[in-house]
């Protein structure tokens, strides 16, 4: 390791996910010497990018695997809908517009997309799916970076970014739990993610309820660098309670459960809390659009848990779940197995069933098959829960990533006290809150990471040359 700390690197990249890799590749292609400091061990490299699956991409006509067109305004409207306007329009449009050029760039740097898919959200027009998923993308970028001579250090936890007089000089880093060392650089790109892996921080922001949240992504995003920068006075964006949180299988691992913990049964179910009471319209909208709100809904229930209950009619209408459903021949039996009050559950389901009316059921579209005279109403896919066997899944909030982050400008430059830092750039989740104030749009995290990762890498490469000249002068 000593050689790494004796050298002055042109560009130090903190983090090892999609945004970090895009930045490192751009800087290396500009001829700079680049070191990546990835906090995770090699098998867990890539941060949340290893769990992602697709890239939302603007295109004015068919582009690679994308069909038809998806233009800037439609993309922006989709973003406004989920963020309820809580976005920086200039940065958002920059991300959207640049995404079109990113897709061919990704392909030319080893990323492979897959043509068509079954059983997934209908996103073939707006989102390009990675062949093999996010880890395959991460592998491709690490290989490209290696071919470009980028040095990668794993288990490298950056503990401090040294900034003096508006200028970055070095990072302090602990490698594989060893002694702290300094690595000097002429420019730095901070791409070390959010803080959802730090449960204490989540609990400070959300209250004690956060201790019951499951972390869907990497456990290595503990916000150490983010906190260090905020403590030094870096300008921030985002609300610490805002995050991408969905309702996932309550039996999922505490960390790193990823995609398989998703549960798509909610629209065909009644969802009750631990007291056996319904609390929200399960049929509000098609599932991909409403999926993201259920994390918050469940987080607001006692003990941050809910139970989705279906009957045999619906058992095969959604994607297979990773854990088998709890199954029983009677509702009371199911209640007992799931630890729910049986009598109350029976009353809730009876009231719901009595409110169901005749109509045509269409599992794949808003069918308007709504209840009458029950609160809350179920506005679509409302069929009585009546045909045994009955199936139940527990639900818990699953956090993918947090939105509190560093404020950046259109060149991905970080500011401190309203002043631009001379040679500090940020990309990926650490600055995504600048654009995603709340809500989530499938594949948009990868868009932000790719667009701003590339910008940060290009700018840092230029900045490193200026730094070199300044030193020489």
């Amino acid at each position, binding site marked *: 390791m000593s050689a790494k700390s004796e050298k002055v690197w042109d560009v130090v990249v903190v983090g090892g996910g999609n945004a970090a890799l895009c930045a490192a590749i751009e800087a290396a292609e500009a001829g700079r010497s680049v070191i990546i400091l990835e906090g995770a061990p090699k*098998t867990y490299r890539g941060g949340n990018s*290893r*769990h992602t*699956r697709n890239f939302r991409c603007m295109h004015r006509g068919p582009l690679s695997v994308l069909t038809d067109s998806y233009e800037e305004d439609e993309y922006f409207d989709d973003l406004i809908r989920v963020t309820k306007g809580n976005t920086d329009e200039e940065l958002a449009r920059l991300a959207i517009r640049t995404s079109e050029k990113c897709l061919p760039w990704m392909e030319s740097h080893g990323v*492979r*997309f*897959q*043509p068509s*898919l*079954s*059983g*997934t959200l209908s996103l073939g027009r707006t989102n390009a799916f*990675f*062949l*093999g*998923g*996010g*880890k*395959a993308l991460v*592998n491709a970028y*690490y*290989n490209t970076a290696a071919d470009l001579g980028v040095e990668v250090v794993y288990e490298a936890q950056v503990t401090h970014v040294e900034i003096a007089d508006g200028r970055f000089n070095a990072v302090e880093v602990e490698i594989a739990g060893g002694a702290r060392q300094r690595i000097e650089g002429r420019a730095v790109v901070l791409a070390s993610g959010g803080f959802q892996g730090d449960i204490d921080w989540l609990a400070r922001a959300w209250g004690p309820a956060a201790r019951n949240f499951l972390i869907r992504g990497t456990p290595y995003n503990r916000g150490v660098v983010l906190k260090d920068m905020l403590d030094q006075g870096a300008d921030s964006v985002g609300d610490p309670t805002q995050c991408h949180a969905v309702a996932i299988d*309550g*039996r999922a*691992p505490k960390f*790193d459960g*990823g*995609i*398989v913990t*998703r549960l798509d049964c909610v629209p065909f179910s009644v969802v009750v809390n631990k007291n056996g009471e319904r609390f929200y319209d399960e049929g509000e909208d098609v599932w991909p659009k409403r999926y993201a709100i259920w994390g918050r809904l469940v987080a607001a229930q006692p003990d941050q848990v809910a139970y989705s209950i279906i009957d045999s009619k619906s058992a*095969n209408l959604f*994607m*297979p*779940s*990773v*854990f*088998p459903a709890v199954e029983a021949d009677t509702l009371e039996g199911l209640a007992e197995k799931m630890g729910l009050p049986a009598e109350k559950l029976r009353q809730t389901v009876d009231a719901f069933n009595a409110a169901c009316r005749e109509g045509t059921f269409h599992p794949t579209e808003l069918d308007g098959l709504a209840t009458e005279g029950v609160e809350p109403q179920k506005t679509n896919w409302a069929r009585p829960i009546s045909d045994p066997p009955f199936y139940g899944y*527990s639900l818990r909030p699953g956090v993918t990533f947090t939105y509190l982050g560093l404020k950046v400008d259109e060149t991905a430059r970080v500011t401190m006290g309203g002043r631009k830092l001379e040679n500090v750039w940020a990309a990926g989740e650490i600055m995504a809150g600048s654009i995603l104030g709340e809500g989530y749009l499938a594949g948009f995290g990868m868009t932000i990471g790719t667009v701003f990762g590339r910008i940060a890498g290009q700018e840092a490469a230029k900045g490193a040359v200026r730094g070199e000249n300044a030193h020489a002068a």
Partner: protein
Amino acid sequence: MPLDQTRTGLSTTEEARRQIEICNACRYCEGYCSVFPAITLQRSFSDGDITQLANLCHNCRGCYYACQYTDPHEFQINLPKALAEARSESWERFAWPGAFSGLFQRSGVALAAALVVCFGLLFWAGQALRPESGEGFYAFLTHSVMVAIFMPAFLLPLFAISLGLRAYWREVGGMPVRLTHLTRAFSEAARLKDLSGGAAGGCNFEKEDRYTNVRRWHHQAVMYGFLLCFASTASATMLHYAFDMPAPYGLFSLPKLLGIPGGLLLALGGLGMAVLKTRGEKDLGAPALWGGEMAFVLLLFFTGASGLALYAASGSALVGVLLPVHLGAVLAFFLTAPYTKMVHGFFRLAALIRNAQMQE
């Protein structure tokens, strides 16, 4: 109430099923090969389904390197290994007679011993049954003696393999085969589609997470090399019986025009497969079978190479040594075929036909 997802105490089939159910909830690997689209057709998997999926897998390892759930993740996914083990277990289950099941698959030493025994047999035959006169090979072993040895050595293994295939077809719930199923299956085998990685343009066998087509090319060299050698022998048989044209044959005869490129492909491909085998991560296949598989590809190489050497030695005294060596290799290859990696070709084709039926 997390479910127990540890691997303790699961049988090979149960472990493969556990992993496949996780894959079915993920589906990120859909584009790599035929296994994943086949998984998505179902929500639960019978033992027969596992056998079918296991034989559909070509151990390209694309899914392993793309997987977010490999060790040390608690889901402990290693699908190439789980399917390789389920696959070899299925071959052992279908082997007839059962006493030989796994013998040559699991042991390179057993295969080498079989080879030595066959050499011995051929040398003995060459010495004891040496004809009074004869041309070319027939100066060392008469045509009728060769037929007496190789006819049963060819037909008995074929019979054994056909019994295995029948058992396979029953276990996977196969239906009557139609031409469209065959067309699709043979087309996929001819291109070795399942080692192409789909849009990845290669597999991850020997270079970890980088994609290459090297294994695919070597595999096809072996397959087409073997088929050419087989066609060469078949054409020679035709010439002998139908046209009364016994060996030896000149360079521009059908047996030689098929056999020489066939031998070259078989030898080069077999050697290439052996080298790749030393580079691939052992634990992404069935580690217990590594030795048997290695012996098998080396036997393929040796069969091709000794055939070429024999042809090169035509007319010299070396033929007396090289002929029994080559014929010994061929004999060992055929006799052990129902119990070596050779069955992979047959069961894989059956799996492709069954998959064509299921995809309809």
